[in-house]
């Protein structure tokens, strides 16, 4: 890991995706490191889901962008990185959920053969409950999050559920703005306890009503939420490291 050993001020070629205008960053991203994803993310992301004509346009744009040459920005497909070429998902299950939740569910999609639904944040726990009680999705596989700092709703919380009876695995996603506290899923699935704590630990998303909303892997006094995109791998909580471990940096 040669990058890790560099002093803090050195240009970090490994962080091209950091937004250039991080508040308080004493390390402006060098121009050379400004690669396509960043340039692309400056443009407002296209509406929410990749529905409609976007999926069709994308595959065509991709090879063209690749052919445009490595290193150079990709003006041909500025919106490509944000969009997933998903297809609609329809089944008996989606019908039943549509009837029950109506416009609470924003999207039923499928990508590489895996089905997922996107719901309004407040509907997540009722949907999980319905999936468990009515549709046999009795095993909560995982709860995690993805940070998209340029989107208006930067945090995507992902619940993965599995049904032993149907041998089917689906994902439920909600998109939430900064500071929104989604309701905890612990009353429905006890597994969610540690998994939600980890989401809080890494992303700073607190869950409303969680019985024990503390950090789980990092020390309680840790200051940053590491998996947020604005936190570079080179700028972790050195304050804590210096104070508690007596060494210059955790790197």
């Amino acid at each position, binding site marked *: 890991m040669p*990058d890790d050993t560099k002093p803090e001020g050195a240009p970090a070629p*490994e*962080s091209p*995706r950091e937004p250039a205008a991080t508040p308080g960053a004493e390390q402006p991203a060098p121009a050379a490191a400004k*690669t*396509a*994803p960043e340039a692309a993310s400056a443009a407002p992301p296209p509406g929410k889901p990749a529905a409609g004509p976007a999926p069709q346009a*994308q*595959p065509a744009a*991709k090879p063209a962008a*690749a052919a445009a040459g*490595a290193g150079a920005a990709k003006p041909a497909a500025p919106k*490509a*990185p*944000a*969009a*997933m*070429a*998903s297809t609609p998902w329809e089944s008996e299950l989606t019908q039943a959920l549509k009837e029950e939740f109506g416009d609470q569910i924003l999207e039923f999609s499928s*990508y*590489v053969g*895996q089905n997922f639904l996107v719901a309004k944040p407040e509907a997540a726990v009722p949907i999980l409950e319905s999936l468990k009680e009515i549709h046999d999705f*009795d*095993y*909560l*596989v*995982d709860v*995690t999050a*993805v*940070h998209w700092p340029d989107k208006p709703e930067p945090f995507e919380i*992902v619940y*993965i559920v599995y049904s*032993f009876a149907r*041998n089917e*695995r689906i*994902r439920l996603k909600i998109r939430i703005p900064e500071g929104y506290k989604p309701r905890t899923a612990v009353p429905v*699935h*006890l*597994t969610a*306890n*540690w*998994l939600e704590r*980890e989401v809080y630990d*890494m992303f700073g998303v607190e869950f409303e009503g969680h019985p024990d909303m503390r*950090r*789980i*892997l*990092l*020390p309680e006094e840790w200051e940053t939420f*590491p*998996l947020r*995109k604005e936190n570079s*791998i080179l700028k*972790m909580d050195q304050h804590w490291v210096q104070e508690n471990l007596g060494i210059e940096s955790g790197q």
Partner: protein
Amino acid sequence: MADTFLDSTELVLNMGPQHPSTHGVLRVILKLDGERVLSTECVIGYLHRGVEKIAENRTWQMFAPYVDRMDYVAAVSNGLGYCLAVEKLLGVEAPPRAQAVRVILTELNRMASHLLWLGTHALDIGAITPLFYCMRERELILNIYEKYCGARLTTHAFRIGGLQYETYEGFEKECLDFCDLFEKKIDEYEELLTGNRIWQQRLTGVGILTAADCKEYGVTGPMLRAAGVKWDIRKAQPYSGYEKYDFEIPTRENGDTYDRYMVRMQEMRQSVRIVRQAVADIPAGPVMAKVGKVIKPPAGEAYVSIEAPKGELGYYVVSDGSTQPYRVRIRPPSFVNLQALDKMCRGALVADVVAIIGTTDIVLGEVDR
């Protein structure tokens, strides 16, 4: 106050992080009433290295060796899960020959992982001999790895799209020889332990986790099967050609520590069966699919999970179309299974806590990532 000085009060006992039977740097805070455990709290994170953050700062290929460092006693399984997840995003599939070799190495890895579990678990209970036996046989598996890819533990045996290396001269024979030898050795372990009255008394009825509890806590792997749920991802949603092989899913009824022991012993026998079938029929052909030097999966996401020795190991990978992962989430079986420790320990004796931690089969590298 003379009549109250013999009253028992709650006692808080700290176990770990430096404790031989916590299998690494797990710290468990026990709240005790005499010898009985009232409740426990796990303190984890001592081995946290930010693997998921590292992933976002490496290219797709560069991150592959890191996953071996999570569950370091089952590095091959970790690698397989990651490769399958990225292959899913890319829309490629490893060639048949690579898939067969992957199955062989992964099943050998399952045996190695179970052997280390058996040795240390028995040691925790007080039986010292099995540890040496288990290490002896595990060495043979590690030798096969060493010959195959040069590394013994953190192997990085697989590449996205297939394998880096062809098998070496005599690979098949060594695997078969090991299978022949190992079946007798499993009998030997069972002779030492299965019918042993001390072993049975220490384990039977300890740390019971019913099927309903398992589902509630998301517990998978041998622990779930010991509770009677016949579920194995190799059968439920086969990957890497597992549907071609004939094997059974061993289950037990009670979900106690003894049943988990029995399930893992049976699983090693099933692994032998799979390796034999796979070795007998390794297809000819290339070991690498057509994958470019620069891997740029199209923007999208996928969740792929495999049956690791410890349970469901999942990778949720998100690509934004660049050469680096946008997000890699690892769903670690050890972390999720460990959450059920409190449930299993309540009402048990302090000495049983050691047995329960052992039978959970955690690796702290994976719990903390």
